[in-house]
């Protein structure tokens, strides 16, 4: 865990001396900026912070940080981060991963990291494509995606990262966007504050192989109408003047969009966001984009015991004995004179 240091830090202090080599216009730049800013505002200690990644464009991230960093192998960052955290629970561990890295080859490790609730921050850059290998479709690509490996359109139903995380037993699930700096830093701070595995999905634009795949809800012009920014304890309202909201039909148990106020329903009929409610969270991550907005923010947060914390307790104090004499003598021995 991080020990915040008194003096003020500047985002630049968290940038490494390495030249950043993403494509011009890649959403990764904005995220990098946001992470630098977040760490500076949190004032985390460089030597206590480790960024771990697999392979992919997103996974280049650690090279651009001035903290400790480990660019590992494809899909295995969660497992390696687990070892790091269990070997030294005082470290502040971040995992940076792409949709292919964490949900295709790495899906199993992501599942088990979340279920074990290892106290790390897992940030998934979802661009719905394999960037580094030049544009094949990914497990989050929509059905029918044409790509070098699916010239006639992909046939798979995509996986929803947040639905997957909830199913895996994640206790913190949030969403944000590459280019909305304030929202992004706020979400990252919440993730960092959460004890346990914090899962954050970021919609990230790959300008080269999947440009604009999220624009229908990220474009400045449509954002207010198409994004539902959730806040714990606040009603689920959206729209430029917050005149629409979500309501649950008690008969069908399904959500519906309702107009609020003037000719619409009474404000108190609108659902209030409860980030500790898994059922609500699973509805919010699943909203059908054809009729609903896209929910962003902290969708679920309900802390429980962490694996690393419990291990610490089990090892109480972690006193380390070197008394091999005693060890080797366990059980029956005899002496030959």
């Amino acid at each position: 865990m991080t020990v915040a240091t008194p003096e003020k830090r500047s985002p630049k202090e968290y940038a490494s001396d390495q030249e950043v080599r993403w494509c011009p216009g890649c959403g990764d730049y904005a995220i990098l900026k946001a992470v630098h800013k977040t760490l500076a505002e949190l004032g985390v200690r460089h030597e206590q912070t480790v960024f771990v990644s697999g392979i992919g464009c997103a996974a280049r991230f650690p090279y651009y940080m001035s903290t400790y960093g480990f660019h590992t192998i494809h899909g295995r960052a969660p497992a390696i981060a687990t070892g790091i955290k269990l070997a030294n629970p005082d470290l502040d561990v971040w995992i940076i991963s792409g949709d292919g890295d964490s949900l295709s080859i790495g899906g199993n490790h992501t599942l088990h990291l979340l279920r074990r609730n290892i106290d790390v921050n897992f940030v998934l850059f979802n661009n719905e494509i394999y960037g580094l290998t030049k544009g094949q479709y990914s497990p989050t690509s929509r059905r029918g995606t044409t790509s070098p490996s699916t010239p006639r359109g992909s046939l798979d139903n995509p996986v929803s990262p947040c639905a997957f995380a909830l199913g895996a037993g994640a206790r913190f699930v949030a969403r944000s966007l590459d280019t909305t700096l304030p929202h992004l830093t706020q979400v990252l701070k919440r993730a960092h504050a959460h004890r346990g595995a914090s899962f954050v999905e970021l919609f990230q634009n790959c300008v080269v192989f999947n440009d604009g795949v999220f624009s229908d809800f990220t474009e400045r012009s449509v954002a207010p109408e198409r994004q539902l920014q959730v806040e714990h304890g606040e009603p689920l309202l959206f729209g430029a003047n917050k005149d629409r909201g979500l309501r649950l039909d008690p008969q069908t148990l399904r959500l519906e969009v309702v107009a609020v106020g003037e000719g619409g329903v009474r404000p108190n009929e609108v659902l209030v966001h409860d980030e500790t409610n898994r059922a609500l969270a699973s509805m919010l991550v699943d909203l059908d984009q054809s009729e609903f907005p896209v929910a962003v923010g902290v969708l679920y947060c309900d802390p429980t015991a962490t694996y690393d914390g419990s291990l610490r307790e089990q090892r109480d104090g972690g006193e380390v004995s070197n008394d091999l004499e005693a060890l080797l003598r366990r059980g029956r021995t005899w002496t030959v004179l």
Partner: protein
Amino acid sequence: MSVDSRLRPRTTIEPEVRESVVIRFAGDSGDGMQVTGSQFTVETALAGNDLATFPDFPAEIRAPAGTTFGVSAFQIRFGSGEVLTAGDELDMLIALNPAALKVNVDDLRPGGVLLVDTGAFTQRNLNKAGYASSPVDDGSLGDYRVLPLDLTKVTLEAVKEQGLSQKEALRCRNMWALGLTLWMYARSRKATIEWISRRFGQRPELVAANTAALNAGHAFGETAELEGDIQTYSIGEAPTTPGLYRTVTGTESLAWGLVAGRAASGLRQLFFGSYPITPASPVLHVLANLQDYGVVTFQAEDEIAAICAAIGAAYAGALGVTSSSGPGIALKTEALGLAVAVELPLVVINSQRAGPSTGMPTKTEQSDLYQAVYGRNADSPLPVIAAATPADCFDTAIEAVRLATKYMTPVMLLTDGYLANAAEPWRLPDVADIPEFPVQFHDDPEGFHPFLRDPDTLARAWAVPGTPGLEHRVGGLERDYETGHISYDPANHQRMTDARAAKVAQIASDIPIQQVAAGNESGGVAVVGWGSTYGAIHEGVKRLLAAGAAVSHIHLRHLVPFPPNLGDLLRGFDRIVVPEMNTGQLATMLRSTFLLPVETHSKVTGQPFKIAEVADAIRARLEQ
């Protein structure tokens, strides 16, 4: 007299003196053959014999009672001389039911003693074992000296006072058989009686019953007034170095060796990432109980996560260890390449089993040597060592930790299913004698970069997260020799490739020169072995040496790199043969390294070598 009438021992018979004896206790999974064997082992050790044991568990978890695939057995060989294997053929077999007889009788030597519980030879059990008629009556056991006793009956008699349920009473049969066997070989019952009271402490009636059965079996031997005979045997004490002893399995000594290595390195944590697999899982089980010795065991979701977590732990400054068997090691190979690339210390243990693929999980084999040495993409050299005996696993584990931490490299340690389960007496080392090799984490920011190398060892600096001023990035992309940053430079890749190779190659100068385990330093046939074949080869060679043959035993612990003098040593012999439980993997390595006409004596049956098999193989070559 509750004994089959055909049996009429004489009152007194001279004990027959034997140099070594092989006994196997066999029965149903539920008959307690493993504890019976262990107790006989303890009494034998206390009697001062050298010994070796090997259990044979059924392949199935818990097969139906009375079936052949539910038979469990425990074999022990003990003697007045050096005993290094559990023996080729049985001098005595104790079979508590027809299935146990069926499965094991072929291993009994002609003239061997066969103790059967006729009470268990019911038609039902005979059918389950696939016997048309009872072999005890149909004369098919003519080659053996059969002791047909109705153990069921005599046991029930012996324990009747305790008024146990029939089921519980019958569970004492093994103690009756043990009592008689202990008497036949003139062993004490003291340790066993102690064990019984510890084991059944909560239930006095069971303590009494088991003790009664044990004593009854013993008394039967002494007092039996019958025609026919029960031969007794006397085995002299083995000349053993004074000291404190215990019996140990390869699994135990391996686990303890890792802990000893952790202590010798001065590291505070041994992080053991593993995923269960036969026959490797027991190492995880032993270490899981050693939290107080700085051990953190992590049962990962699969073998890949297991090694990756260990790599992560090593990156964070712990001693990273991962363990599996062939199929699981196969899954670790990509991550192993990362450990080679980022040059982190890591111990990878392979308890080999019969393959390919799932193969025969409970059977032993040595066929993962190729995988250990060559089984990675690209040029990814790493040290490979192997343990020779159960006790040797301790020292080999310490050596693995030493090489990994001193040279910042993953090290492959090979054992196998035989070593994992076999046991032998072990003279406890004086802990003070265990060499220390304290690890120094790098902490000086001055001129630091992550691939700064020690000029002597070529090991890179180990700088762990948490150290101020040494923040750095490592990864699997090729790194610049001078800065550690990503580099695609052709000359740098050549330089790094050469450095990785040189680092491992020059370990040869830091390991003991190869000794000859038996026989002359040159001339005649060199029998070269590695791993668990040590016992069979050593005894086989010694037999031939005793017969005056020109033969030597050379046993390798270090397989990559080879000891510096190995080439010269081998060139001194007329002929070189490698007995291996594979199709000739070490032989291939020796041939390519030294261009010598090394021959393979291959056995791939899932069974360890017999002493005689090795001896015959050598003899055949001596005669040519």
